[in-house]
């Protein structure tokens, strides 16, 4: 599959039907999921309707991590085989992942305000997601600072892999620090032991986010391929000296 799509031409052919497919899937899952989340699923006994933020927030948190995993795999492929499409893919994944991480932070903060009465707590999970966001930003900056695409791709791939090794260390240390500094006030509000009536919309929203991720990243890679093609066409014209000119 990856081998097959590694060819830009074949990828473009694949993208021509895959992008709209994922777009349709996204809107289907989103529509059905939102209806399930906002109308069908019950309000929480303690949190009331505020619990519905979960359907936006939790899938965003999952996608923030899943995107980093995708970014890592693409970076590994790019580092080992130096493949252009893997570079485009990695950058697209990072952009989308950073957006999901920001969404996760913002919705988490709003949810925290309604249910715990505070916009922000230096709690283990929140802090590690925040650090993940900064790693995404630093990764994206690497693409910005070099004009030359090849070394930038190398550096970005190296940075993504270093980041992957560091993420568990950061997560572990922040959790440890958190348990040291404050009693666990606020973890596990809605994660385990979820009722089925809440699990279904959560899964649907996750599938919607996943399709959105696929749709946007395919679209982005497609755009990048076309941009690169256009650049290549616009380079120097062939020499047109004829005998008459001399």
């Amino acid at each position, binding site marked *: 599959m990856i081998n097959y799509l590694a060819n830009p031409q074949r990828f473009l052919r694949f993208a021509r039907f895959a992008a709209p497919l994922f777009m349709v899937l996204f809107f289907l899952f989103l529509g059905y999921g939102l209806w399930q989340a906002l109308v069908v699923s019950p309000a929480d006994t303690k949190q009331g309707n505020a619990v519905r933020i979960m359907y936006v927030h939790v899938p965003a948190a999952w996608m923030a991590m899943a995107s980093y995993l995708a970014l890592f795999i693409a970076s590994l492929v790019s*580092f080992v085989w130096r493949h252009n499409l893997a570079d485009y893919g990695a950058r697209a994944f990072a952009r989308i992942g950073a957006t999901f991480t920001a969404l996760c932070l913002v919705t988490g903060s709003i949810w925290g305000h309604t249910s715990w009465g505070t916009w922000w707590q230096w709690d283990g999970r929140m*802090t590690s997601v925040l*650090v993940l966001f*900064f*790693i995404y*930003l*630093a990764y994206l*900056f*690497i693409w910005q*600072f*070099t004009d030359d695409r*090849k*070394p930038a791709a*190398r*550096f970005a791939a*190296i*940075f993504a*892999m*270093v*980041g992957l*090794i*560091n993420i568990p*260390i*950061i997560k*572990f*240390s*922040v959790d*440890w*620090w958190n348990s*040291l500094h404050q009693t666990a006030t606020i973890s596990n509000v809605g994660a385990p032991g979820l009722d089925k009536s809440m699990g279904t919309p959560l899964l649907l929203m996750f599938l919607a986010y996943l399709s959105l991720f696929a749709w946007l990243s395919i679209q982005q890679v497609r755009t990048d391929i076309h941009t690169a093609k256009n650049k290549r066409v616009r380079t120097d014209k062939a020499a047109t000296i004829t005998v008459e000119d001399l």
Partner: protein
Amino acid sequence: MNALLWRDLRVLFRNPQSWLMGIIFFLLFLSLFAIALNGDSHKMRSMGPAIIWLAAIFSLLLNFGSIFQNDVNNGNFEQLHLSGLSTVSIVISKICASFITSIIPLLIAIPIAGISYQLTSAEMAAIMLSLLIGAPAIISYGVLAGAMLAGQKNAGFLVILMTLPFMVPIVIFALSGIQAYPAEGLWNLQFQALSGISLIALAIAIPAAAAALSAYLD
């Protein structure tokens, strides 16, 4: 390899702005902070270790923007490569050289800062020890960022942006280790974890920085 380390040390030593700037920044940052706290000795004492650590991290990171820049720009790096040295040994030599040139001045400056922040001698010793244990991690991530930014003009800010996320565990374990030092001594759990992080960082950053430098040879 030995000759390379001597050369790196000489270059850093004869070019004092690289490490001198860090120390001046360190002292300036701390005095500005004391001013910002209104010279309140009680607050300064309680925040001292954290602030000194942050100042140390920033002053260390300041050096790395230019660490490979001259070598890459004036062709020394290609010559070293042609002479048969691997990029790994170039990186290791740089890490050792910047460890020596940047840590020694900091170790001298920390007691000065500690006295002005009215820290006890045990706290100062803990800060110096934690810096010695944690510095390999800071320096290896800094060298990694420096290797990626070798071709860049104003790399100073980017180094900080790229390395600070990885400083989270280092700061956490160093500062809690400083707290635990008076009761539990040097080999407390946190310092053990910190030395583990330093070793992991070395293991990651040496091959990664070597790979980044190889990108300049393509």
